[in-house]
């Protein structure tokens, strides 16, 4: 089965491609930010800096 997009195919394809690109950038930014924050927390943990609660910065309940 083929899908015909007519004479305005470029507008339709560009819309979907732009949405995919922007969503991919958002996901990439959030994943990279998470990695960056956890890496910094690990570095602080290694240097002996702990939270006031006494738990490690990386602790999760």
């Amino acid at each position, binding site marked *: 089965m083929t*899908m*015909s*997009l*007519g*004479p*305005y*195919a470029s*507008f*339709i394809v*560009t*819309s*979907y491609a*732009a*949405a995919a690109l*922007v*969503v991919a*950038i*958002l*996901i990439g*930014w*959030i994943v990279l*930010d*998470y990695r960056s*924050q*956890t890496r*910094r*927390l690990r570095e*602080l943990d290694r*240097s002996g*800096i702990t*939270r006031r609660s006494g738990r490690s*910065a990386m*602790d*999760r*309940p």
Partner: protein
Amino acid sequence: MTLIDLANPTRFLALTTRVLPWLAAATVILLAIGLYQSALAPDDYLQGATVKIMFIHVPNAWLSMFVWGVMSIASLGTLVWRHPLADVAAKAAAPIGAAFTFLALLTGSLWGRPMWGTYWEWDARLTSVLILFLMYLGLMALWRAVEDPSRAARAAAVLTLVGAINLPIIKFSVDWWNTLHQPASVMRMGGSSLDKSFLIPLLVMAIAFTLLFVTLHLAAMRNEILRRRVRSLQMMQASRIAFSSEMGAGSRHDNASKEIGAA
């Protein structure tokens, strides 16, 4: 787990760890179904295949307003209830809302060119959505400009609540003014005027994009909590260094005084 329990950032982090994989999976499945249904949707008798842009444009346009609504509720949480996660939620939502608003403007423009003969028109709907996009950018700039998160939170909360005035303007702009943009065809008195063959894929895509927002928002909130944890630990580290260097300088000064006295 109650809502009060989620006020504890550590518990919230634990919840996101459990929930995020399920939310991401549900988003991917629903997006796949929505895209498949959008591809199979028939051409419109007037617009032809360009009607397929609707399935991506309308969910983004809905979310552009929905996200500001979420930020407004979070702002009330900051100003009225002082909920510890309220400003985290508002700050984390802003870039995601800006991205959805950008996509609504871009896809609307790409839909407008073949249908209206122009990419842009300074009419009420388009201009009010552009203002919403600029407000998102302004809010993000404000968060970055003020270093202390709690001070930035209060200023951003006031700005968000003032900006919420724009939401009904966007919604009703097509009724209040003569605009190039078509009036509401889904959420309107008397029910949707869309045929089921368009309405069902549109609703599936709208739910999929809403799930996408929830997933990204929870992940961005988790990042913001970790960022604040990093910031407070770095401040603790800096104060320890300052304290130990002061102690070092103090003991050197004492030793120097003793040496002078002995001489």
